[in-house]
């Protein structure tokens, strides 16, 4: 399993594009928002938690179709399915690799982009924590969506249509935690629920992902 994780990480880094692309997209979305809504600091700092969460969600969405597509085309996914490693474990590792290459850099970059949107100073800590807890759930749900659409030639758009409604609870709790942090309220409830979603998705969705992969490989 570790070998699979390292292989995916190496591929992501060396193949180029996938690794930095999500980050660049995140930056561009955040930069575009002030052009859209105007440069007033007050307004920006009020909408900053939501913008940062939505932007990181979209950036995570961007690289989803790469999770299985290449492995499916060159047949290594079929090899994975016949290997002694259970496919559930492979799905878990794929999601983890996706998180390390997109979710983690986004989490680290988000506070810096918070400056651009003049996020309230109290909220930085909660932004970091909520993204750290929440983005793994985005990767796992996205891995499930990628498994559903892996056999389709133009699955990218369909993938977003399938995955975005599934992202709703994660987004609500994540952005709510940051907003409460910014308003000086106690965000523990939202953070705990966010952690619950992440734990639940990582416990259950590998099974659904493996089942859909088996159907697609039939």
């Amino acid at each position, binding site marked *: 399993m570790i070998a699979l994780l390292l292989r995916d990480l190496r591929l992501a880094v060396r193949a180029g594009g996938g690794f930095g692309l999500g980050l660049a997209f995140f930056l561009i979305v955040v930069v575009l928002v002030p052009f859209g809504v105007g440069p007033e600091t007050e307004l920006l700092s009020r909408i900053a938690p939501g913008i940062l969460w939505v932007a990181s969600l979209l950036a995570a969405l961007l690289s989803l179709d790469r999770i299985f597509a290449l492995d499916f085309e060159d047949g290594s996914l079929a090899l994975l399915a016949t290997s002694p490693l259970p496919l559930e474990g492979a799905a878990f590792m794929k999601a983890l690799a996706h998180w390390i290459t997109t979710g983690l850099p986004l989490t680290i970059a988000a506070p810096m982009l918070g400056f651009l949107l003049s996020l309230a100073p109290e909220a930085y800590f909660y932004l970091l924590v909520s993204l750290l807890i929440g983005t793994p759930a985005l990767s796992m749900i996205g891995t499930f969506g990628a498994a*559903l659409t892996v056999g389709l030639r133009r699955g990218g758009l*369909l993938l977003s249509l*399938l995955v*975005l*409604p*599934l992202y*709703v609870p994660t987004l609500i709790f994540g952005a709510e935690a940051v907003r409460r942090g910014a308003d000086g309220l106690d965000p523990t409830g939202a953070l705990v629920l966010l952690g619950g979603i992440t734990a639940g998705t990582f416990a*259950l969705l590998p099974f659904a992902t493996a089942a*859909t992969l088996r159907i697609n490989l039939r």
Partner: protein
Amino acid sequence: MSMWEYANPKLFMGWTRPVLPWTFGLAAACLVIGLVWGFFFTPDDFRQGSTVKIIYLHVPSALMAINAWIMMLVASIIWVVRRHHVSALAARAAAPVGLVMTLIALFTGGIWGQPMWGTYWAWDPRLTSFLILFLFYLGYIALWEAIEDPDTAADLTSVLCMVGSIFAILSRYAVLFWNQGLHQGATLSLDKEENISDVFWFPLLVCIAGFVLLFIALVLMRTRTEIRARRIRALEARARRA
């Protein structure tokens, strides 16, 4: 003979043929009686005036929008467990009906909300959950349309329906956490003190029965269409091979 044998495509076509016109007829009768009774023979509400009457469309369609998804979930589970093709096709047939019910509920709600709340749309938990349900229907239908092989499509949409149901319930409670509501609470429950008045309640019941029957009739009809379409495809494949 077990109940499962009615799901054999040939038997299904057999017993639905005589049942279908009756279901349609009953649905039409219930809807006509319920709507005419509701629109013309009930008094106006003392606070809402005549706008209250949209309840006869709004509540039944909202109920059926949720029940259609539950029916799809049950049909998906039956397909995954027992692999009855009719079950998968029924789930496929129910999806657009549920989608339209969701739309009717959203639109009638907006029409009612304009004079009452002063707005067509508010980010109220119930309204938002319905919008999310609408997106789930869209994704489900799009996945069916995108996959060529019918068995693969049935399998994948079943998995999506099951996972989606969990997330739909999760979203339902997440939006409660996110915003407080404008929408009134349930007034149709059987065990509460404060309920809707009987004057509105009886025509509403007839309307709900009409919508349930209409849903059953539409799903049966669309399932028959799906079975026929699949037979045509099988015949064409055989003709191409010969």
